[in-house]
């Protein structure tokens, strides 16, 4: 469903008329550089579609991680952790997006640890939040990802296949 929704949003984006400079334009002075063009957040329709596009992209990434964590058709032992990490990631994405929308409309120039506020969200939060997924993988590995029973059973399967082939 998410993939269909994603393709639907892309279809809607294709139906809008993008401003010619939406992906940047040549810099007035330096020809090897691009200069920012019209932001999508300045138009009501493209603002929503752009946000949903990003939400689908981040949501697809989280969904695939969840698919990889399914074991014997279930998610029992790891579900709350993955939901927490996914929700945290989607919230951080939303905060980055809305911080940038405010940056574009108001021209705020406040900095946080070296970066404009929306970029600081990107650098510090969007980069770091997925560490939650990494920690889940490390600390739930033996409980859920690959239990010792599964590993022992796998050895039996390998031995059985070798015996059948020989």
């Amino acid at each position, binding site marked *: 469903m998410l993939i269909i929704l994603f393709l639907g949003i892309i279809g809607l984006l294709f139906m809008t008329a993008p401003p010619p400079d939406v992906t940047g334009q040549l810099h007035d002075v330096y020809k090897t550089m691009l200069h920012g063009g019209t932001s*999508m957040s300045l138009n009501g329709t493209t603002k929503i579609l752009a946000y949903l596009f990003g939400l689908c992209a981040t949501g697809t990434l989280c969904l695939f991680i969840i698919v990889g964590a399914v074991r014997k058709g279930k998610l029992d032992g790891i579900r709350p952790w993955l939901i927490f990490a996914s929700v945290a990631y989607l919230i951080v994405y939303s905060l980055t997006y809305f911080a940038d929308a405010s940056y574009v409309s108001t021209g705020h120039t406040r900095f946080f640890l070296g970066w404009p506020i929306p970029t600081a969200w990107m650098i510090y939060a969007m980069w770091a939040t997925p560490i939650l997924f990494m920690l889940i993988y490390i600390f739930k590995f033996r409980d859920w990802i690959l239990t010792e029973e599964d590993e022992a059973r796998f050895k039996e399967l390998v031995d059985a296949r070798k015996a059948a082939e020989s």
Partner: protein
Amino acid sequence: MEEYRNPIILSAVGLYMFLCIVVGIWAYRKTKSSHDFFMAGRNLGVVVTAFAVFSTTLSGFGFVGGPGLVYRMGMSSIWMVVIAVLGFSLTNFLHGKRLRLLSELGNSKSLPDVVFLRYNNNNTRILIAIAIILGVFGYLATQILAMSVVLRDILTETEMFSSMTLEMSMVISCSILVFYSVTGGIIASVYTDLVQGGIMIVAAILIFLTVMYTFDGGITEMNQVIQADDPAAIGPWGTLGMVGCMSWLLMFGLGGSGQPHVITKLMMNKKVSDAKHILPVSIMGYLFSGLLWIGIGLVMRALVVSGQHPELAAPDEAASQFLQHYAHPVLAGIVFAGLFAAIMSTADAFLNIGTAAIMHDIPKAIGKKIKNELQWARITTGLITIIAAFFALWASNNGDLVALLGAFGWGTFAAAIVPVVTLGFNWKRGTAIAANVAVIASLLINFIVKIGKFSVPYGIDIGALSMLVALFLFITISFVTKPDVLEADVAEVMDM
């Protein structure tokens, strides 16, 4: 010290190449069979596997193209680095266990081998092998060309080699690459990756420290200079815009799990449970190396717009200009060695999977048994390099074919392999017919859009779009076709 800059750089690159030769000779003694040649005997430790994963991911593009993109577009391409933690985690959740288990169960020597085990369909195996070969020639030719251009530029700065041609520098650099790839196969490849990864981390950290002190006010002043010129450039989406950046996030996050040269490394570790240690080590390595990408690109943009440095002739000169004018000669030497390391670590991985596809997968799919597979694998590795080198030379004089193939190599792999391998290995309902349609559709979309030079609105990455379409086809066709009957042990492993 400044007058010795070129000899220092040359010495660092020469020392690195000598190390590659030593590793090649050592690995030759350890390579006893084609299984060793392609899969390193499935005997790699945590650190070696982790370094191989991250250094293979970060090709020469990360050292040259990446800073060039940041210089040209501001923050846009930094999403390719920001996605690293999520992307590597996703790859491990989806492949760290099941791909590794299935490859051991089938005693597989290549990714198409495991694909055959999963789908029990030779057409799927051949299609994946063809997708790999197409991507390999494009990517490999690009890497060889980049390696030769950099070596020529370094050598022509010295008096002794001032008349060095591109052809001659290609012969020198390819000889080193062929030597260790032919003699030691994947064992030489992953152990040189270890050396290469180490050099890349050291180079990136030192460069980032240099970048931090280029402006008196540090990173804040650098970013304020860029913001004063163009607020969008230092905003989170850079000049590309939000949708284009998010499509890159998807392409490099999910698409990373469809890169055969990277995920085959996850089939080679000794113990399946090592995956939990491999993940954090590879993430750390990539993050440190990514600092170079970000740092050089931003500082060169700031230096140019503040009038402290003349405008670059081309964005890809960002790294070389910074090293030449702002880095200590010894650091410049380390970074140039790191650049060769980045290019070679990716090139040798492509050589390995390309050789496996040609020498092992396609003959097996059409029912041909190759005698003395190890010897033929070595011959094929040499031949692929020679063909790719001629292809690179020809294309560099006849338009932008190599750049075109190289540019969509990542997207081609992602669109073809993500549905079939990333999803298909974690979803038993996926069928072989759906897999075949998804691979064909993804290749056609990529080729038609790139060759026809169609533009996609809002800067949406074509690889991301074709990957989504291929995923949609794979899921939909799987649901409407009769489920495949899997072998009992394969089905049980997929349930684990």
